[in-house]
């Protein structure tokens, strides 16, 4: 936007070069109207709204560094003898993929740093998406009209997992090869079609000579392509829906209070990009990640202890490690429950969180748009559900690292595994109950603050000797913020007999909905927020204080 026209220059007949370029472009791209509509777009300010930015920027960093890596990586499983500069592997037979990754690490200028930036950025990208998703979940930002965008985000997380998996499998090292074997085992456990899928994917018996080249196409083209499309769609929808905001004075469901995109957010976001890039680059300069040279080339007859996937696949690893090795034999076929059950649970567990927005909107029956975020405490059941889900996830991460935990905390691996088995069921239930209680406690505290003011810590002695603590009434703004949330009433089944006395049949789903609604918004599930009458009664002086 380098167009600063003054009426003076126009009167001279010829516009400055910048304006002519802009005009030329506008005539073909229509940028004026686009810029006019969006340049002053307002975004609210909160650190948690920048979690998505962390994901976006690390995604960009991954693409940039990934392009550099493709220049030197050979996605081939041809066997070669290594003669590079890493001495402990001299003369070893390995695939070209592994040899070229060693070359990138030791013989390509800047190769190791770029490799480490790529890998650290991937770890942070997934971690960022997880936290971003939880932020959206706990604040209720997934509600209408953002359900589709929630699904886009969820898909990005899942695709990110598989892009990461296909990525770290490319070097064909002993650790990732073990991971590929693990995945192939999971595919094989699928009844009937498992073997066919495995042969199709690997071009024959595992490991074959094809999978690196195939994973390469999937990793650099197919999945990132889909992800890029989803990212663009995700951002377009953020623009279209406008950003959500926390409740506060002057903020309503119909406005957005914050700063304009240009210049404030462009500067902030641009600066933040470089901060993210800088921090990830610093991390990659400090700490080693996936040192394939010590792992050695993959050979199906070798394996190492402590073989875990990257953290985002650790959940799946934990499920398999925790599951007892059951199997059923019938008519010469084996159903490997020890692997198949975890595979099913993996999909179900992730699927539940993806579908949650739809479940909640069915329970509330709320068809309105929501642009004001919930404080997690004001939606105790949702918050408790979310914490339960995260607890289950984290327990499975512990399960995935059971051996490392056993050796480093001097525990028995069997005890850790049993903890995980029991914890997977008991942990979420406990977390649900505890979280809900904490939320209700916090709601009571809010109610107390609204009605009685803030505890100042000043102790006053009354003439007759009584000590009291001075409470300071909250400001009007604070009162608004604490009482802005809306409280639902539990849905009722409604009259089951119409005006003519004819009984209508109550559907099962209707009964279930009423039950769930009661669990969400019934007496035990929320503390009634103070009403104006409550407030007046207390502050008028008639109340006991």
């Amino acid at each position, binding site marked *: 936007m380098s167009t600063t026209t003054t009426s003076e220059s126009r009167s001279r007949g010829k516009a400055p070069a910048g304006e002519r370029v802009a005009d030329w472009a506008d005539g073909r791209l229509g940028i004026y109207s686009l810029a006019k509509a969006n340049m002053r777009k307002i975004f609210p*300010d*909160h*650190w948690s*709204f*920048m*979690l998505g*930015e*962390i994901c976006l920027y690390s995604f960009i960093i991954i693409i940039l560094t990934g392009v550099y890596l493709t220049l030197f990586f050979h996605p081939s499983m041809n066997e070669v003898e290594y003669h590079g500069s890493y*001495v*402990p592997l*001299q*003369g*070893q037979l390995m695939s070209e993929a592994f040899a070229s990754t060693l070359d990138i*690490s030791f013989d390509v200028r800047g190769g*190791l740093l770029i490799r*480490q930036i790529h890998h*650290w950025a991937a*770890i*942070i990208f997934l*971690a960022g998406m997880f*936290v971003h998703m939880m932020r959206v979940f706990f604040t209720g930002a997934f509600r209408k009209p953002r359900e589709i965008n929630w699904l886009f985000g969820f898909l990005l997380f899942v695709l990110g997992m598989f892009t990461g998996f296909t990525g770290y499998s490319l070097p064909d090292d*002993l*650790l990732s090869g073990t991971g590929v074997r693990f995945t192939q085992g999971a595919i094989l456990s699928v009844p009937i079609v498992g073997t066919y899928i495995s042969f199709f994917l690997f071009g024959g018996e595992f490991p074959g000579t094809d999978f690196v080249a195939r994973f390469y196409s999937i990793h650099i083209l197919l999945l990132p392509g889909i992800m890029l499309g989803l990212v663009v769609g995700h951002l377009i929808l953020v623009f279209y829906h406008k950003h959500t905001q926390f409740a506060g004075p002057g903020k309503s469901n119909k406005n957005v209070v914050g700063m304009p995109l240009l210049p404030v957010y462009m*500067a*902030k976001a641009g*600066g*933040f990009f470089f*901060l*993210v890039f800088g*921090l990830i680059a610093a*991390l*990659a*300069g*400090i*700490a*080693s*990640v996936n*040192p394939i*040279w*010590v792992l*050695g080339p993959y050979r199906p007859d*070798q*394996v*190492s*202890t*402590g*073989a*875990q996937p990257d*953290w985002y696949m*650790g959940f799946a690893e934990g499920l398999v490690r925790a599951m007892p090795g059951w199997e059923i034999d019938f008519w010469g076929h084996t159903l490997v429950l020890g692997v198949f059950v975890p595979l099913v649970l993996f999909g179900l567990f992730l699927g539940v969180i993806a579908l949650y927005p739809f479940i909640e909107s069915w329970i509330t029956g709320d068809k309105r748009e929501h642009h004001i975020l919930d404080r997690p405490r004001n939606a105790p059941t949702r918050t408790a559900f979310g914490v339960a889900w995260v607890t289950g996830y984290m327990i499975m991460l512990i399960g995935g*690292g*059971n051996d*490392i935990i*056993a*050796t480093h905390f*001097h*525990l*028995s*691996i*069997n005890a850790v595994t049993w903890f995980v088995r029991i914890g997977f069921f008991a942990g979420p239930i406990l977390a649900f109950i505890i979280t809900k209680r904490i939320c209700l406690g916090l709601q009571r505290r809010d109610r107390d603050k609204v009605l009685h003011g803030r505890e100042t810590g000043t102790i006053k002695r009354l003439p007759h000797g009584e000590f009291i603590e001075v409470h300071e009434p909250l400001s009007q703004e604070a009162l608004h913020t604490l009482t802005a949330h809306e409280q639902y009433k539990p849905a009722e089944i409604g009259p089951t007999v119409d005006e003519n006395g004819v009984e209508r049949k109550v559907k099962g789903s209707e009964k279930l909905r009423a039950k769930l609604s009661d669990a969400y918004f019934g007496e035990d599930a929320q503390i009634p927020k103070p009403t104006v009458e409550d407030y007046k009664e207390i502050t008028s002086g008639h109340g006991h204080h």
Partner: protein
Amino acid sequence: MKKLSARRRHPLAAVVVLLLALAATGVLYTALAPTGKAQADETAQSLAIDEGKKLYAVGCASCHGTGGQGTSDGPSLVGVGAAAVDFQVGTGRMPAATSQGAQVPRKKVIYSQAEIDQLAAYIASLGAGPNIPTKEQYGTEGADIAEGGELFRTNCAQCHNFTGKGGALTRGKYAPTLEDVDPKHIYEAMQTGPQNMPSFPDTTLSEQNKKDIIAYLEAVNSSDTESPGGLELGGLGPVSEGLFGWIFGLGGLIAVAVWVAARTAKAKKS
């Protein structure tokens, strides 16, 4: 020839022959016998056994039995060889605590090397077993590091991890870390198979193989090992990498986000 044959009935002939034979035996012995044995003369050896027996009676007999025959508290030591003693006592695993956990851990060595040698001599006298390896055997001269790496990944990594950082076994047992373990002890461990470890006698892993493995471990898991990528984060793979990424990567970025969000442009200065 005549002269020699003429004197063969000389009264001193037998003495001369005996002297010559003794001298020849001595020369041959010094030329051919292993150096270790050449120096250890018979009396010193039996003295060591005697001393070792005394040490054994004080420190070991309560579990392993008065004659090394074993009891319900400790296995028989007949035939375990000097190498096993040197490993177990030399790494502080023996004597074990009275109530050890799932596995006897490596701890402070309480016998001097001389005492350990005496104990080893006594145990070796109970029955034939592997000897303490010599420097030529466990030294890394002429070793192939890459070959050692391949052997390590094939035979050892499934319990000890890629570079010997250790790993978990069942019910609290574990394969210990091999970082900076004396090469002699690594050799002896392979030879004797202590605790849960299988033994790799020379028929399974030749002397050269063991040398290669030791050289590999020295290259990838000693205090001199370089980590080209920076901090190696314990060398434990993705678990520690994930933790590091979450705490310092994402944690750091969130801290930066909080900092950036707190510094907002103000339309009007208030």
